[in-house]
């Protein structure tokens, strides 16, 4: 089973269409294995990207060195998935009872 330990979801606020273009360029860098949950299109709408743990540093350095405003939407994806899984198991037990 694939795990997502240490993967984060970053929420990026682009300030201009130039920054949107830069984020779109990021999408083409396949080696970073980024999963765009919300795509870069319009500066009014934040961009959400799931970043694998091993590429977090590179992506954050890229964002910070280009003055992107971002926040961490999900600190550790696996933790949230584990909670979700536990909740599902608990619900299934309740239903069996």
């Amino acid at each position, binding site marked *: 089973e*694939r795990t*997502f330990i240490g993967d984060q979801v970053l929420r990026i606020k682009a300030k201009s269409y130039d920054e949107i273009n830069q984020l779109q360029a990021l999408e083409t860098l396949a080696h970073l294995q980024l999963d765009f949950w919300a*795509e870069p299109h319009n500066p009014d709408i934040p961009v959400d990207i799931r970043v694998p743990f091993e590429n977090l540093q590179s992506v954050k350095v890229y964002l910070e060195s280009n003055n992107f405003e971002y926040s961490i*939407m*999900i600190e550790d994806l696996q933790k*949230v998935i584990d909670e979700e899984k536990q*909740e599902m198991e608990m*619900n299934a037990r*309740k239903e069996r009872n």
Partner: protein
Amino acid sequence: SGTFNYGAYHSLDTLYNTISSIAQDYSSLVTRQQIGTSYEGRPIYVLKFSTGTNRPGIWVDAGIHAREWVTQATALWTAHKLASDYGKDASVTSLLNSHDVFLLVVTNPDGYVYSHSADRMWRKTRSVNSGSRCYGVDPNRNWDAGFGGPGASSDPCSDTYRGPRAESEVEVKAVADFIRAHGRIKGFISIHSYSQYLLIPYGYKCTNPADYTELMNVGRAATSSLSSLYGTKYTVGTICTTIYQSSGGSIDWTYDLGIKYSFAFELRDTGRYGFLLPTTQILPTAQETWLGLKKIVEHIRDNPY
């Protein structure tokens, strides 16, 4: 039986059992139809809500990208709502007295199972791509609408891989064949999450559809009704102007086929969870979405073409 917990995420088996239960519990109104089989051999079930013969139809599907669990949950809740409100709610009753509704709760069953068992973030089908180590096709880049154009990848390892040809995915072909064979589908609504958008064609090109003004007005009325419950804010617009250019999408195909009322819903996001929306959010999401859906289907009912 009334014991099903709509406020929880469930396995495919449980969803399928519940789909069967709804058809049994409301047998005079609802039938379960198998419209195809997934790549890995799972049945693709549609719930048909019908009170007579030779009616025009409205299509609703959910969860084409498997990881969007709230989407399938919302569709299942909607199925129960439609069935239980018939004969009680005047709007639902008049809708189902004039139109059939087809509801596909799990559009990508293989992906749904894979997201439960192997990769929670999976969004594609599970077909084998010959010559590649990577599996699956993005089923919402695989429709015959500008296929192969911008906003879809030709790389089988990409999450937006369009596939070798339009309708190469059996899950897509099953729906397309059903729509073509029916011939009188008047509305097509595809439910996704998350982003809080109500989208209209086009995505494969950046020009407005001929019915742009009407579709935008319907969309605004729907999202205004949706927002009245919990204040969730939606953006209405074409796929290209609201998100980005993307080819091979379902509502572009249906619109070009002549189904004027073609919409894609991107359901709620609180800004904290993305595709991991907690179960406490399921019922509010379903309830508010229903208000939006109802506005759309009422417009379809009242504006025959």
